[in-house]
């Protein structure tokens, strides 16, 4: 199929779940028309039961549409070529519990027919990127914590260096540090020109990394657009400055009020709780995120870029 800059396109996509006798039971997705551009981070938002997971399952051919068309990277969802180019991190890390970390990645690598030499290089590289240490690599997945399971799940999604990555609730189960690392990685992937489809109900995460979002409710698309545009309050202006005394600030406030501004206030900005947590933990451990090889950012991000 021709590449027209679209990573995902759906036309009138509808999914109706039926009962044993074939009678319609639930309309999980109703006439979804969606386009995701190559190279963007796209957020799929909505409350539980809104159709987010159904959309992802349809894109991955895990379920079949009742009506409508789907195109992923220009291919039909049952195309093997499409699967060669995507990576998928499911909501929970649904992996073989009796394999260890390395065996898991080797298995998924073989699904892409990666040769032995490539696997030997790629597997430790990915384990480094997601921050699983040597001890964890040899442990069986059933012994992994939830955070470790998310990390190995992410590693298997990246094993083929995909063009499109579908992340279903990627930060679920991660601590704030892990959440930050995950978001850094998503941004890193975007820098590499990859497309990321993010499905989450943790709105702060989505806001931090997504270029565009859509909100689904009861199977229907409610809104679609760039995050900045959607969140911007156009009739309120904000001025930021560093190094002013309290007297100087009062002068500025009076100056703005003279110019006719209503409800002019001056406050000090607050950081996010996540930023505070990361700063405290890193100061305490004295570790450097980039150099220590425990996170996604910095050198690890570079690794991802190289790979």
């Amino acid at each position: 199929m021709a590449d027209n800059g679209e990573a995902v396109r759906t036309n009138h996509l509808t999914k109706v779940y039926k009962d044993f006798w074939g009678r319609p039971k639930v309309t999980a997705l109703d006439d979804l028309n969606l386009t995701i551009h190559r190279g963007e981070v796209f957020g799929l938002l909505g409350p539980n039961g809104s159709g987010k997971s159904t959309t992802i399952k349809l894109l991955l051919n895990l379920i079949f549409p009742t009506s409508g068309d789907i195109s992923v990277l220009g291919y039909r969802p049952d195309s093997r070529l499409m699967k060669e180019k995507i990576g998928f991190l499911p909501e929970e890390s649904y992996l073989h519990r009796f394999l260890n970390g390395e065996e898991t990645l080797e298995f998924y690598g073989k699904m892409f027919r990666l040769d032995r030499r490539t696997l030997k290089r790629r597997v430790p590289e990915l384990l480094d990127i997601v921050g699983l240490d040597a001890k964890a690599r040899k442990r069986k997945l059933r012994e992994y914590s939830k955070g470790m399971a998310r990390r190995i799940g992410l590693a298997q999604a990246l094993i083929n260096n995909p063009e499109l990555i579908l992340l279903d609730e990627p930060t679920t189960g991660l601590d704030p540090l892990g959440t930050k690392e995950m978001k850094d990685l998503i941004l890193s992937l975007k820098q590499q020109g990859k497309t990321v489809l993010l499905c989450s109900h943790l709105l702060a995460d989505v806001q931090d990394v997504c270029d565009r979002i859509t909100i689904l409710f009861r199977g229907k698309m409610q809104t679609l657009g760039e995050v900045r545009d959607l969140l911007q309050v156009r009739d309120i202006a904000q001025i930021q400055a560093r190094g002013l005394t309290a007297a100087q600030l009062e002068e500025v406030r009076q100056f703005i009020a003279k110019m006719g501004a209503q409800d002019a206030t001056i406050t000090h900005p607050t950081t996010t709780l996540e930023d505070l947590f990361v700063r405290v933990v890193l100061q305490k451990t004295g570790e450097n995120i980039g150099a220590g090889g425990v996170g996604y950012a910095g050198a690890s991000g570079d690794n991802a870029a190289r790979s």
Partner: protein
Amino acid sequence: MELFADNIEYILGGAIVVLGLLVIGLKDVLCFSFRRVWAISGVVFAESIRRRVLWVTPLAIIGVFIVAQLTKPFDEQDAIRQTLKFSIFATGLIVTLTTIILAATNLPKEIENRVIYTVVTKPTTRLEIIVGKVIGFARVSAAILLIMGLFTWGYLHVRAWSLQGSIKAGLADAQLSQVHRNALQHYREAGLLRVNTYAWSGEPQIFSQPPEGDRRWIPGGDQAKAQFFFDYTSADFTPPGVMPDTPIAMALLVDLSYQQSRTIMPEVDPLSAYGIPLPSNAAAEESTVPSTPTPLLPPRPRLQINIIDSQHNPIARPADLGDARGIMLPATDQFATMMIPLPPAIAGKLVTAGQFAVDVGTSALGTQLSFRLPQDQYQPISLRLINPETNQILGDLVPRAPDPQTLPVRFIGEQGTFGQQLHGDPHNSAIAVFAFRNTDRAVSSDGKINFEMNIGIERTGAEQNVDSDDYTELEIRLADPATGATSPPNIIQAESNRNVFFTMPADLAQNGNFNLLVRNLTTGHWVGLQARSVQLVTGNVLFSWNLFKSLLMLWLMSLLVIIIAMFCSTFLSWPIAIVLAVIILLSNWGIQQLGDMGNELGNQVAQQIFGGNQGQAPQFRVVSSSVNTLNKALQALAKVLPDISQFSAGEQLQRGVNMPWRQLIDAAAVAFGFGIPLTVLAYLFLRNKEVAP
């Protein structure tokens, strides 16, 4: 149409494979990667091993140890045989149970816990997933079989070694019977784990004296009968040039002679013994055989003719042919042809049946019937078709076997508990002839060939009450059918169901064609004989090799079990999948137990419900025809279900008989003949299945 019906399972299987792989799934076939399949199978194998599936083997081994210690074998060879039986049974049981549970639960559980998400979203096809899982579980069953095989091999060798001490002690016992001593000596020399290759004759035939040229004799007193096969269709009963609706009369033409070699008193006349009174002038009328005009001869013997259909249901009994006592033989000891008209009702049944057999014998003691079996078209019996209005002969139907390579006649003895019975008589017993043709021979250094015999022996009521170890004495001769030369008799002693080992001179069996003639010399003993009662040793193979073939047979069975369980799990939850898999595996066997009884089953069921005298009642006919229709439907269903009786892994191993490759090929044909189409069906079901719950 008949070709289609006979090969329905292969046609159906072939259609599924062609449609599934070359039409619907061609894209998946073209990108099929064995590397991905092997990777999937590796995960299945590793997961099974790490879930400690192999822990079932120590449990089975402990079970075999315990049961082997609790059994009471009747000799050392039997101890080995029973241990082997338990071991192979335990191996088959755990490999079947393990694989059926693993294979039926795997896919539904992967869908349920969503592990399948990360697999199907990779560039593997659902065909590769199914094949990979089948191979993975086949690797698990191979691992179980390897462990159990090594255990069986080791345990049997240790047990055989320890039993040699018991053999030595037994031989030192002066009180030991000769039969047992001979057996122990053989065990000591040949070992307890020997595996031989054997040659067998066909079913033994019972005669009153050894066959000579084209002459055959059968004894009277209901000891044996000649059975002639007719294999025709209804159309064959209307000769060319005869209008289809022309009424046809029939008569049996029987050409034979008889000899009365025994004088008996009138009060023990066999007909009297049956409670049938002789006519007042019968004695004078019937004792007129010219060549032996002795007043002590019994009345002229009668011929009993029975006609049965292919399911052994009676078509005509002696009473249907004119006289319940039978038909009186002609007053000559020369060959004479008797013409026996068949009533129209019997003739009609023969046309309907098409396939039937005519049994000819006599209940007269001391009488033997003689038949001529020349190589040309002449037959000792034929069915003559006659135009009843003009008495014109329309044609003769001669005996014809369904298989043109086999003779349409056999001489069979009375059936007892253990097979065809050979009555004991030191002077005048019948002869069982085991005809060995084109056999290999393993001639020992002293110019002998080795035989093994295992027979069942019945005794008269008086003998059974005697608490003794009396053996049965048999006289064995070896005869060259080409020259008629016979070896000197070899007198052997036998006990019921115990192996007897004997040798015969090889010089009369030079080209592998010979008859083994067996007489029973012990009065009051009835020897039961079957096709496998006497076997010729033609060579030997390693026990390990035979064990390997048995394990291979079990592996083929486990492969079929895996595929069936996997197939069921693609559209059912795992508990239901296990139940359905068991049903599919056992249905063919179950239907075979019903047997192909034709329309008799319906009649039997209806008779049980309504009693015996309501053959014309409408309810009777409704029940009868319904049961028959159901039976036919089940028989048809059985053709498309796998026949697990083909996976008989332990029988030869226990008997120390080399398993022929043919048997393994037959088992492989069932495993792959059903397995491949079912794998394709499983793929098609999974291909169209939404794997997200």
